């Protein structure tokens, strides 16, 4: 890259030094480009640890882990505290669905299991796959909001005009932050039909019996 500058005796020594420094600086540049991408997973980890943005465990949406299910029987209910839980759900622009909770608020004690139904209806004329992304507000309560059942764990697939009732079973852990009296669980549903790869198992002889069912596989 370095060229002899006009009207000057560039010693080979200077040129070698220049090249060495240029290479180092270019490596820093490439490293920083990589760092921009590294911020993506770093941010996810950071959000999960702090509950930033009210994001729950990103992969499972606050789902109780399988190994913890047994402990749910031993849970004690703290009747000294009553928390109001509010529900909000709607479809993002571009998704012609109706999505709403059966009730906008319930009261629970920490440790108490509660079931709330949500309703989804595909108002459009075509089959749509959607995904609901949960969010908890205030954010620092997100880590204490646990769900054993939720439509947000998987993608929702509704045929044109189809209606569906979808239960959410949740509880607040006993150590739920003392300063929160009201917590809001919000769902936003997004159209992911284009992002879902549909694999047709038809014509596959080894596949016993069931045909026509499509297996949806998320592409990202």
């Amino acid at each position: 890259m370095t060229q002899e500058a006009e009207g000057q005796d560039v010693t080979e020594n200077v040129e070698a030094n220049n090249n060495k420094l240029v290479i180092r600086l270019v490596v820093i540049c490439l490293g920083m480009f990589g760092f921009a991408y590294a911020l993506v997973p770093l941010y996810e980890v950071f959000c999960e640890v702090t509950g930033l943005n009210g994001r729950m465990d990103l992969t499972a949406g606050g789902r109780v882990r399988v190994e913890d299910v047994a402990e749910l029987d031993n849970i004690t209910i703290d009747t000294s505290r009553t928390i109001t839980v509010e529900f909000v759900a709607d479809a993002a622009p571009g998704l012609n669905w109706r999505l709403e909770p059966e009730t906008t608020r319930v009261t629970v004690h920490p440790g108490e299991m509660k079931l709330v139904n949500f309703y989804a209806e595909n108002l459009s004329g075509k089959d749509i796959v959607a995904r609901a992304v949960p969010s908890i507000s205030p954010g620092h309560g997100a880590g204490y909001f646990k769900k054993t059942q939720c439509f947000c764990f998987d993608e929702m697939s509704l045929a044109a005009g189809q209606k569906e009732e979808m239960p959410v079973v949740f509880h607040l852990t006993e150590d739920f932050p003392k300063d929160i009296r009201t917590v809001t669980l919000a769902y936003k549903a997004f159209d992911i039909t284009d992002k879902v790869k549909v694999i047709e198992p038809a014509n596959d002889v080894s596949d016993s019996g069931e045909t026509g069912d499509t297996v949806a596989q998320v592409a990202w």
Partner: protein
Amino acid sequence: MGEHHGPDKGIKRWLYTTNHKDIGTLYLCFSLAMFFLGGILAMVIRAELMYPGLQVVDPDFFNQMTTCHGLVMVFGAIMPAFVGLANWMIPMMIGAPDMALPRMNNWSFWLLPVAFSILTSSIIMSTLGFGQAPNFGWTFYAPLSTTYAPASTDFFIVSVHLMGISSIMGAINVVVTIFNLRAPGMTLMKMPLFVWTWLITAFLLIAVMPVLAGAVTMMLTDRHFGTSFFDAAGGGDPVLFQHIFWFFGHPEVYIMILPSFGVVSAIIPTFSRKPLFGYASMVYATASIALLSFVVWAHHMFTTGLPLAGALFFMYMTMLISIPTGVKVFNWVATMWRGSMTFEVPMKFALAFVILFTIGGFSGLMLAMTPIDYQYHETYFVVAHFHYVLVSGAAFGIFAGVYYWLPKWTGVMYNEKLANAHFWCSTIFVNLLFFPMHFVGLAGMPRRIPDYSWQFADFNWWISIGGFGFGLSQLLLLAVVIQAGRGKGKKVSDEVWEGAEKWGLEWTVPSPAPYHTFSTPPVIK
């Protein structure tokens, strides 16, 4: 001693040049052109905001104006102007014959006209009625810049990539030049402060321009290649965009001010006839500002809902920056203390810089406080703040530098009458333009909106008058530069300013500076 030949004739001289002075001139002329383009866009904004209601442009076009004004001024006017000053002055200040990588230097300049032709073409197409120019604000927050963005966003992305590559190459060139081409005896702690501030700026550029490139690449793949970095539907998060953007964006604001600090630190000693007070502390203060700039980015995002510990951390770190900045302001004032001061135009601009930049610094300190920021966020108070630091800060620093070195570049003194008129008009109108924005901002006028409530009408009328006045005043600068560029004016001596010879090597070479300087390294005392 190599062979001495003059430059090529005609357009080839400028297309093929590897001479640091030619490239410096190209950068400066380009940035002046972009300054006027960005200024025209600002005039459209102020024309619309002169009266409440919608009268001149429709809201969507207004958004395109605010977006492109910001992009053109930041990437087209201020940054290239500094690179132009660096090209002209750094080799002359450290006793080097040229920049270390002259051909790359040529390339990094000629990428810029390409980048800005692409961006400008989207504005022209929009004006002619074909689609929209970028309209999502210069900060291009997702999903406005991804899901909801016009088709021209891809023009914008390519253009940002090119300017990024240009800036990075320019920065690499500066670092290599400073490290490897200093004249014997020119130790790091003997370098003029302009060289120091540019060295640190170059490292900031190398560190953050690639992050910006990463951000726009993610936008591109989100828009066209099915990724979901910033799309909640695919598991991404739009707030992540803001983190990445401001990780670039905050160091970027120091990229736009540190070289001005260097210019002012060169000018104030000359016209106070005293050496710079606290040279070493100036160097350390500049370095501390640069380091701190990496850990304050989320102060742009207080209202996105940070955890308490995060908000406190970013608030305290931000406030901490006022300490090294205060050291600098103190040192400039102490340099003037009991100096035999004279007030030539560069000194006038430098003084205006110190005072007006400090006002911008104070409003920045107010914005740094998390709870108070909730009121100021996204209002004209913020607009007032960053225009005080970028117009009466960065741009005034550039004006000061241009007036200071123009006689050395051209061999003639600028037209002092016009230059003084330029100074007084700029200083009066810039305050008329930006000071009342503090008041309307505190009273709740939101930024980026083409209309406003009636109670803001009187202030906005005055702000628009200030805007038009400031814009027209810059024609005086154009006249001064053209006159001096054509060699019309009083011939100047080699040291140009009384006693300047002892403040820097650039004043030891003839005026105008010959095409090649320091082909043999000077002796540093």
